[in-house]
């Protein structure tokens, strides 16, 4: 019996299981939260070691990026991210993973056309729209200050 595309779409929806939100949401919250706690712990440690607030923040970010790149290189970050979801995607570690993963993956195509050219295939849009949004907000802020 021939089906219309709309009927088929209904059948597809019926057969396709949904994401188990009751599992994925708490896991994302806990794992993402742990990454943030680690960041706070690092910040406290660097402050305790005598760095001023601005430097302690920068070094905390650098340390988290290092951890993420290290775990990505050893193929462990994606195993954590499988459970972490947005909890590992949203913090700076997720951004680092999205740059390091293609850089490593495409090194077989060479350092120029592979590693360098493909490094931003995932992070590129974040950078483009992040910068674009910050410029727009900057202009709005400037206009408000003129008033």
């Amino acid at each position, binding site marked *: *019996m021939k*089906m219309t*595309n709309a009927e*088929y*779409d209904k*059948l*597809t929806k*019926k*057969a*396709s*299981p*949904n*994401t*188990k939100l009751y599992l*994925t949401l708490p896991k994302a919250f806990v794992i993402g939260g742990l990454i943030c706690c680690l960041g706070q712990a690092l910040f406290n440690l660097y402050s305790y070691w005598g760095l001023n607030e601005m430097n302690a923040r920068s070094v905390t970010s650098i340390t988290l990026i290092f951890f993420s790149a290290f775990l*990505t*290189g050893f*193929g462990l*970050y*994606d195993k*954590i*991210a*499988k459970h*972490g*979801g947005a909890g*590992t*995607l949203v913090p700076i570690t*997720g951004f680092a*993973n*999205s740059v*390091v*993963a*293609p850089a*490593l*993956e*495409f090194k*077989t195509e060479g350092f120029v056309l592979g590693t360098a050219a493909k490094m931003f295939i*995932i992070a590129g849009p974040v950078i483009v729209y992040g910068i674009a949004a910050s410029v727009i907000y900057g202009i709005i802020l400037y206009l408000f200050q003129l008033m």
Partner: protein
Amino acid sequence: MLIKDGTIALDSLPSVTAYASAAGKMESEGPLGKCFDFTTQDNTLGEVSWEKSESKLQQIAFTTALSKGGFSQKDIDVMFAGDLLNQCVSSSSGAKDTNIPFVGLFGACSTMAESLALAGIFVDSKAANNAAAVTSSHFCSAERQFRFPVNYGGQRTPTAQWTATAAGCAIVSSHCKPPYIRSVTIGKINDMGVTDANNMGAAMAEAAYDTISRHLANTAQQVSDFDLILTGDLGQVGSDMLKELFKRDGVDISAVHNDCGLMLYDREKQDVHAGGSGCGCSASVLCGCILKQIEQRTLKNVLFAATGALMSPTINQQGESIPGISHAVQLSAQ
């Protein structure tokens, strides 16, 4: 001989005289792990790129099939080979040292049935004495081409399928011993407007339904005439949909239906979501497990309908839907 509407009866009943399968680490840990002729714990197979690893897997399947059948490369008149990668590069690289007339095929995950059907038709029509059908897929080479880098921390949806790291090869010769190829049905493009690249099962279910029902109608057979109707890799979602599509016609296939994507992995223990996929999935299940059972006559009449989602990332990103296809090969012990 053409019966009608894409169904061809192979009157001389060509034989699958030799077959071999090769599989990667995760596949070797699955329920069929012991069936494969070759397994590896190192999915690189000692190569510098995933594409080369896949080529090597295909070569291993081919050379193992040759030696199991007592063939030398000179005995093979034509080779039908395919894989998932652009320009079918795993197949062409794998075959470059063979000096065998080569036909490269792309039918996505349906390629094993496509190549086996063509090899059967060539032998039946005496265009070849021995024809090889060989296909492969590799999780890592497919991921980097179709999706994300392997180490990228993304989450997969429940409907997503796992591309098998596996290869299979079948060599078809003139009638001598089972399994015999009785008939084949060439698939048509079925596009039901599915755009979700993470739901290949849904994109392919209609194609499987169309090809299987055409095959049954054109050869005047019933579902009950078969011990097994084996779809390529519909996975859980596609298999459920296929059963539902048949149910609308008042036909229940669940007693004889199984799916290579559900057989290759243990979905409870292995993290494959809706099941396996990739050319190597149906190839390794057929060549590792099913052909042997037909040869030993534990299975007598099997309809092998491998299914392919002909997904191009380019047109998918342009919002176009994913065409599906399924080719069927009827294999029997008599």
